């Protein structure tokens, strides 16, 4: 039972990071019909932005403040990169979905290559507070402190995003645009501004996801390829949850995170089944596509 509870907690933390990675992707596709392969780049550059700013702080033992600075830098870095991507590369290509896909893939490949050339693979370590590496006892269950941060970030972002989408005018524009972009324009609303905002929000969350993934799941090592690895699961979460649905992404992220953790532990112990966690996630995706192609919370088309 103790093992099960530990796995559940770790799975929820993983799900929280998947949610951060997937929600922006889901909104961007839902509103703009863009399969944004540059989202992995947003995650990677967000993490590198956090690392870069942290290394410019006075050399002391990493503290909570250090991590707070990294979080702010990752969010701002992800948002800035997303803004530039939308304005410079995506906006001139509206109405050309294939070109948009190609340009986002090209951007992602170029940035990964530049980072590999500049920093190498797994050569940088993200400074994190010592508390991150410790664990908290909850009865007989040992819960890694870093998982608490991931979980808290996921919950906070979900609550803020839901509030934003339900209570603000921009949120209503985005939700309406996901349903019928053309009609929103016909009501006199400049959907282009909503496009840019959605990209910026998605980039900010991706930056945060990239940083947390590094801090919680990679042993603090930054890799130029980490965003792309995370992007695959983000796409799976988006499809299972339903394109354009934040709640769907949240539920699907938790399901995928838990499934992956349980499968890796209980199945991965057997010879030849070390990748059972990833396999089970893909099988779940196939099942959802077969039974409910629009995803758990996706709109009917």
């Amino acid at each position, binding site marked *: 039972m103790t093992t099960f509870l530990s796995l559940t907690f770790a799975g929820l933390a993983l799900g929280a990071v998947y949610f951060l990675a997937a929600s922006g992707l889901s909104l961007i596709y839902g509103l703009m019909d863009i399969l944004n392969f540059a989202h992995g780049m947003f995650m990677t550059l967000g993490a590198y932005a956090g690392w870069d700013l942290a290394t410019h702080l006075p050399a002391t033992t990493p503290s909570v403040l250090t991590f707070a600075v990294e979080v702010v830098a990752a969010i701002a870095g992800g948002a800035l990169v997303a803004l530039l991507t939308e304005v410079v590369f995506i906006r001139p290509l509206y109405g050309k979905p294939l070109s948009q896909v190609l340009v986002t893939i090209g951007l992602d490949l170029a940035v990964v290559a530049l980072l590999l050339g500049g920093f190498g693979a797994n050569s940088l370590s993200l400074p994190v507070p010592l508390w991150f590496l410790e664990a908290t006892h909850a009865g007989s269950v040992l819960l890694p402190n870093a998982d608490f941060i991931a979980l808290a970030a996921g919950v906070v972002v979900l609550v803020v995003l839901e509030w934003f989408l339900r209570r603000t005018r921009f949120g209503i524009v985005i939700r309406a645009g996901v*349903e019928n972009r053309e009609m929103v324009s016909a009501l*006199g609303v400049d959907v282009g501004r909503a496009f840019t905002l959605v990209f910026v929000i998605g980039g900010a969350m991706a930056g945060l996801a990239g940083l947390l993934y590094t801090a919680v799941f990679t042993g603090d090592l930054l890799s130029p390829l980490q965003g792309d690895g995370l992007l695959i699961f983000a796409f799976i979460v988006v499809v299972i949850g339903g394109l354009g649905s934040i709640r769907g992404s949240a539920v699907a992220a938790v399901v995928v995170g838990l499934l992956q953790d349980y499968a890796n532990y209980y199945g991965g112990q057997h010879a030849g089944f070390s990748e059972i966690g990833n396999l089970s996630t893909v099988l779940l995706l196939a099942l959802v596509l077969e039974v409910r192609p629009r995803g758990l919370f996706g709109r009917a088309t």
Partner: protein
Amino acid sequence: MTYAIELEDVHVSLGGSHVLQGVSFRVPTGGVTALLGRNGVGKTTTLRAIMGLAPHTGTVRVLAHDTRGLAVHRVARLGVGYVPEDRDVFAGLTVAENLRLAERVEVPAYDDAFALFPDLADRLRQRAGSLSGGQQQMLAIARVLLNRWPLLVVDEPSKGLAPKLVGEVADALSRVATTSTVLLVEQNLAVVRRLAERVVVLDHGRVVHQGPVGDLDDADLARQLLGVAAAP
């Protein structure tokens, strides 16, 4: 005479099909002008070209502004309310959110909208997707009344509605037409006769007749233009 809408030699091609083949007509300011024709002759496409939703060549002037190069939201902001053929209310949004989305002025005329459609005032928190077809049509019309815009472009408002609701929607449009110019696409000729002063008839992507609504009293002409007998 001033004109709310002017089309000159408008062409639209969709998926290789030449849907509008040089449409030219003018909608005078004030009252209701009905755009008529058989199914598939390009009525909805004409309205979409006016709104900038259908790529076109030729000249479209809305409220004396040439819409060439204007994005759809800029055309709407000239002062045009658009009620599309299938209502296109946002099903996942509440009635209140649908209305809020359409607000473009400092003080939206909610009183006007609720005076015409009091049912909506009681359903503000209801999801638009759970409204009946008639209620959705009322919401689609109410949405464009909030800004008291001078021009409304309304596509088949009676489509799929029960006769009683058709009467209610026609009543509402009749009152709206006292303050706004309305370009109306409508298959129900009884509604056209009641609301419109002028008719423009399309066939095969071209204007084939323009004149007062009384022209429809000529049964032979009505049958020839619309393929139906216009009952008096």
